[in-house]
């Protein structure tokens, strides 16, 4: 059993927590997420042009790059995390260009060496899978695809095909950190996706509070929280770990009580 499949085999839905690498003291912040009860860590690779992100994560990307974060730094953060937390799944999330810059095979091998379990690439849809997917699968890293409210039944098989680890359902047609979708729409879409695949389905985009997380936990295998955590890093700087742990614990408690 892989680290990712273990995380989704717990008696409760998985809490997936996102932070941008290199924004603040990432090691301390990630440790706080784990201590608070995060089941999966999603580590954002900063990019100059984060087209799918709202203001909070855009700003985190710019802060990180402004502090001089390089790809080697991101991989270093992952490597150190893996040494501290041998069992917590770690997923890299980001955009295609920094991932393919030195070649897909180079990136897949480097991520594997760093102990990364999965990769979410926002701007590589199934139609362009060749650009990264085969290299990830060959290296034993799960390519985690995104499904959205616009992914109709006709497209769904193509999205599911070749996806591993979990499927990330983007609850709103839009960017990260904005409004939440109606729970009825999330429930209908998650069950539609689950009819098409056996891999777990986690739901993200617009999930900020324990109440929202609990609601989604009733209908999905995982809940992804990003912008609300990233905002804590922006607001509290060196004091962020305590705040991150507090919110993560509240989210984890809510999710565990949901079912």
């Amino acid at each position, binding site marked *: 059993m892989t680290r990712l499949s273990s995380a989704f085999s717990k008696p409760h839905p998985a809490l997936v927590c996102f932070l941008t690498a290199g924004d603040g003291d990432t090691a301390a912040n990630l440790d706080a997420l784990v201590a608070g009860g995060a089941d999966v860590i999603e580590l954002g690779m900063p*990019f*100059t*042009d*984060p*087209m*799918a992100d*709202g*203001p909070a994560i*855009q700003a985190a990307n*710019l802060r990180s*790059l402004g502090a001089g974060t*390089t*790809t080697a730094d991101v991989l270093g953060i992952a490597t150190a995390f893996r040494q501290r937390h041998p069992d917590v799944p770690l997923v890299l999330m980001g*955009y*295609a*260009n*920094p*991932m*393919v*810059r030195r070649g897909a095979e180079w990136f897949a091998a480097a991520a594997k060496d760093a102990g990364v379990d999965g990769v979410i690439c*926002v*701007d*590589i*849809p199934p*139609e*362009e899978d060749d*650009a990264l997917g085969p290299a990830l699968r060959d290296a034993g890293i799960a390519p985690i*695809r*995104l*499904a*959205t*409210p*616009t*992914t*109709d039944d006709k*497209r769904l098989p193509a*999205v599911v095909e070749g996806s591993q680890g979990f499927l990330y359902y*983007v609850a*709103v*047609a*839009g*960017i990260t950190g*904005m409004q939440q979708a109606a729970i009825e729409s999330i429930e209908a879409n998650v069950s539609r996706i689950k009819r098409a695949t056996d891999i777990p389905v986690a739901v993200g985009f617009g999930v900020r509070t324990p109440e929202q997380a609990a609601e989604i936990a009733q209908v999905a295998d995982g809940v992804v929280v990003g912008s609300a955590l990233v905002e804590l890093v922006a607001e509290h700087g060196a004091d962020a770990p305590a705040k991150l742990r507090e919110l993560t614990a509240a989210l984890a408690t809510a999710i565990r009580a949901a079912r």
Partner: protein
Amino acid sequence: MNSPNSFRTMPDERGHFGDYGGRFVAETLMPLILDLEKEYRAAQADPAFKAQFDDLLEHYVGRPSPLYFAERLTEALGGAQVWFKRDELNHTGAHKINNCIGQILLAMRMGKTRIIAETGAGQHGVATATVCARFGLPCVIYMGATDVARQAPNVFRMKLLGAEVVPVTSGAATLKDAMNEGLRDWVANVHDTFYIIGTAAGPHPYPELVRDFQSVIGKEARAQMLSRTGRLPDLLVAAIGGGSNALGLFHPFLDDPDVAMLGVEAAGYGLDGDQHAASLLGGFPGVLHGNKTYLLQDEDGQITEGHSISAGLDYPGIGPEHAWLKDMGRVEYTAVTDDEALDAFQLLCRTEGIIPALEPSHAIAAVAKRAKEMRDDQIILANLCGRGDKDIFTVAEKLGVEM
């Protein structure tokens, strides 16, 4: 690399030009991109679509644009005959409108009721606002806050035409950031919104359809040249930012083996530093804004900011078909500095009584170099893709003139 039988059959069915192009977009946009392709194929097969497009180009845009022999410039340069395709005489003053007419007709075919676009210097924004006013559709233009500040006349033009201009403050607040913001709007409004992309770049089918709409330039020029001189030109020259005016001129000639082609990038302060906008000559292949192409980027794949005196060439990418044509060797690419473009700008003003935009001034600078190396029975045809009214403030500042 083997030479194909034709250079005019790209892209393939997946929207790839060799290694370049494709559909690198967020999943939310994929269904829409696939719909757009389907609708474009239907429009291509529909004589009524072509008839409406042609009618608007003739009576609204003012096509065909003239083909003009620049006699005094030719004399001044002392070499090949220099001819211009006068796309600066189009309604709104540049080639951009050709594409906007085509795309807004597609938007209406798809039942979309809201238009968005990005703009750098404001030329594409003005052209988009123009067609939106013409067809009564609401229009939002994303423009970097830096560009809003330095292109005030075009901002006012867009507002006069009824568009909402949204200043973008993220990143460096220039064209690429405006494009990011346009894409963010689009993913949140896919149900009713059409994104009119301003150059032959972005996810498939945009590079193809923009090229096709702009190919009116080359089709007219080819026929005009044959009818005026009985022969084809020896060399085509066009400036390249994203590359739509160049592809529009080049594409209809790609299978004429005796016609050489030269694309001219912006070298800014020079190619040896990083203050230029020459993606093909100074960049590396990568993925941005929906396509794989040459990009200005660092060793980690972070996009770097280009510089050019011309805000219309100041983009860190390039249309994917140019990337392919470069690798195939069918088109030659060169670059011209800010200072060379500024000299060419003044040269054309004084020899021909034409104030060119700073974008084609780059092409004219390259023409000036090449013409001298060619015989006087040879013909250079350059695309004069925009007029310079918008640029007089920039030029005055560069020349140290107070207005």
